């Protein structure tokens, strides 16, 4: 009996293995004929890798970013490369937000033969994947990974967003100069390089301006922020700067409301999400965020993507159930077109050619002009500041802030 079961077990495993192999082969061969509509046009295919989290802490944000790319792909499914029309095919691989899964997800993209990679949402996993992309010589365009380290030590990584030092400084300036606050409470998640990086730059800038900063961290998985808000209150803070992921941002909004915190909440680009604004709706708080894009900045894009989202149930689910456009979606959209520009400029689908062409790309996207500096970072000198309108449940534009 035991032997039989052992035998069956190994049979199952072997079958699984074989099935896996088969699957692997299949995807390798059948992918080239993928989009049904393009099969008719018989164009050649160029693959763009999407290296984004669909699961894990940044899953929600990653999905919204992918939406932008998918919409862009819907708007512009083909590209002229070297005089030929290519169908653009997105190869989406989930990196699960974790550095541990970064390398294999990146390798999977390389394996699928992509010409250029878009992503990721967060910095940590971008760095983990960066090493693989660098070895493979495939250019990567970071969308919203704002840590300076992403591009600093990686020859193939470029990005279209602003950086943490910039964002942190912008917010510090805004808090000190515009909101007139001298004491700030900053809160980041323990173990998140994104949070702690922004905390660092904000603190540096805010203290340089003459303000006082009280900094604390919360462990991952914290669900109750009441005590943190109380700490901010007892520190006499006029603002709480919490550059945290969407889920925690919602919790902080709730807790600030419940504890009657009367200062302002400051958020980074992660806060610019319809989920956060939903939480803020009807609450007695004030919140300001910096972001890459302001809805209404490009009406054509807005209406187009809203229509597309509303017509597409999956997309709507991924967007959190409504058609509000997150900045990361706009950034994903821009990243896609930047990649197309690079492909056009390269005149080839060879990653090496694309890599050479990428630094020279200049593209006017919905989030502004995209150009790269020597390191591969976007040349951006201003950010949008928005505030949460707790009555209408929307982000209201405040101003464009740049660092002087």
């Amino acid at each position: 009996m035991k032997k039989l079961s052992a035998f069956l077990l190994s049979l199952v495993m072997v079958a699984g293995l074989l099935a896996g192999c088969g699957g692997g082969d299949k995807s390798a061969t059948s992918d080239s004929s993928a989009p049904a509509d393009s099969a008719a046009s018989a164009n050649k295919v160029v693959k763009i890798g999407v290296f984004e989290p669909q699961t894990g802490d940044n899953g929600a944000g990653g999905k919204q970013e992918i939406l932008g790319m998918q919409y862009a792909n819907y708007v512009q499914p083909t590209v002229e490369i070297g005089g030929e029309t290519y169908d653009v095919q997105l190869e989406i691989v989930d990196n699960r937000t974790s550095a541990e899964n970064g390398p294999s997800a990146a390798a999977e993209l390389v394996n699928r033969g992509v010409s250029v990679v878009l992503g990721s949402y967060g910095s940590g996993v971008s760095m983990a994947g960066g090493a693989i992309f660098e070895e493979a010589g495939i250019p990567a365009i970071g969308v919203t990974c704002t840590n300076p380290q992403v591009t600093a030590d990686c020859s193939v990584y470029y990005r279209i967003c602003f950086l943490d030092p910039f964002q942190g400084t912008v917010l510090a300036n805004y808090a000190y100069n515009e909101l007139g606050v001298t004491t700030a409470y900053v809160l980041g998640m323990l173990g998140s390089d994104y949070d702690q990086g922004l905390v660092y730059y904000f603190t540096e800038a805010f203290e340089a301006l003459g303000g006082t900063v009280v900094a604390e961290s919360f462990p991952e998985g914290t669900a109750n922020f009441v005590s943190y808000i109380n700490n901010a209150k007892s520190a006499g803070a006029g603002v709480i700067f919490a550059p945290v992921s969407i889920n925690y941002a919602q919790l902080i909004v709730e807790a600030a409301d419940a504890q009657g915190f009367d200062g302002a909440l400051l958020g980074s680009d992660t806060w610019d999400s319809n989920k956060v604004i939903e939480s803020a709706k009807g609450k007695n708080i004030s919140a300001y965020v910096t972001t890459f894009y302001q809805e209404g900045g490009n009406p054509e894009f807005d209406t187009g993507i809203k229509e597309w989202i509303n017509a597409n149930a999956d997309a709507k689910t991924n967007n959190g159930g409504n058609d509000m456009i997150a900045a990361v979606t706009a950034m994903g959209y821009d990243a896609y077109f930047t990649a197309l520009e690079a492909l056009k400029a390269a005149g080839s689908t060879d990653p090496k050619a694309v890599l050479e062409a990428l630094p020279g790309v200049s593209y006017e996207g919905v989030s502004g002009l995209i150009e790269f500096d020597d390191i591969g970072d976007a040349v951006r000198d201003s950010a949008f500041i928005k505030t949460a309108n707790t009555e209408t449940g929307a982000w209201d534009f405040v101003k464009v802030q740049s660092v002087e």
Partner: protein
Amino acid sequence: MTSSKKKTIFTAAVLAVLLAVCVVVDMTLPSYHIVVVVIKKATVYSLVAVSMNLLNGFTGLFSLGQAGFMLLGAYAYGVLTIPVDKRASVYQYFDGGAIQFSLPEIFSGALGDTVGTVVGMLAALLVGGILAALLAYLIGLPVLRLKSDYLAIATLGFAEILRAFFQWNTLGPITNGSNLLKSYPAFSHATPYVILAGLMIAVIVLLINSTYGRAFKAIRDDEVAAEAMGINLAHHKRLAFIISSFFAGIGGGMMAMYMGTIAAAPFKSTLTYEILLIVVIGGIGSITGSILASFLYIFSSEWLLRGLDAGKFLGISAPSVFKNGFRMVVLSVIIMIIVLFFRRGLMGDKELPDLLDRRPKKREKEAAGK
């Protein structure tokens, strides 16, 4: 005697073939190829799974602290190998950090670039292992007196505490706080991983077949009898715990090499659970099983079953079923089936050479008849 000789030859042949395959893979495929990447990851997991098996499977101590020791090993490796001129940018928030040397560079000065770097990397791995072993000694003092499930939960707790310490900003000049460590040297090919992990596992196998290994197994089978036969329980349990942690530390260092960046986040209890389940799939008490299961698990979860997440698998296209997460559901169902119905796992307590035995039938019968 001849049968044992035959077994040795068989084992050596299998290992040689595997190594040859790995070398061929390395020579024909670029280092960023998915096959190379999954071999690297599976190799690291094998080492950690075997180290966990040494403790949980061979000594019968149910510890869930593996991720913590890996964390220590990973950080030790990163901290000691980041080139000095890269430290300013890695430790960007901590003025370049407190440690201003790099083992590979030190050894490069003495031994030449290539050899020196490799020696430095190995030395850093070793330091990681030793630190993990030291910590295991300290933790073991209070914790190893606890009985099965209490031990499990206490070691789990220690791993969590350790994680908080490594993310603590005050230790930032060394650990870089919550920020990543990166830019350290790593092997890009799979063969060095396989050789390194292979050597470590070989040492574990030697240990298990030594008089100490037999004592560990005696403790697992019957603590009371073991103690009555002169085996010092405290001493031997501590020994097993320290040795297991040492190899987990080295495994952590290799994990760091594989990941390219080090943060405390991946070393959560989930990682320990994953490794524990791998050990169970392979068979508690079988080194071969742990290795086999590591490869099966990593290959399927990272590569072969990806189709289950992407809408298309085995040529069947069903995007509504094969969507994100389905791969892990399938895997965890398989794991549960193994846990419930095939408790002995793939290999039971058999090893590679035992596959040559022509007598498993007889033993099975006897086991059933008892």
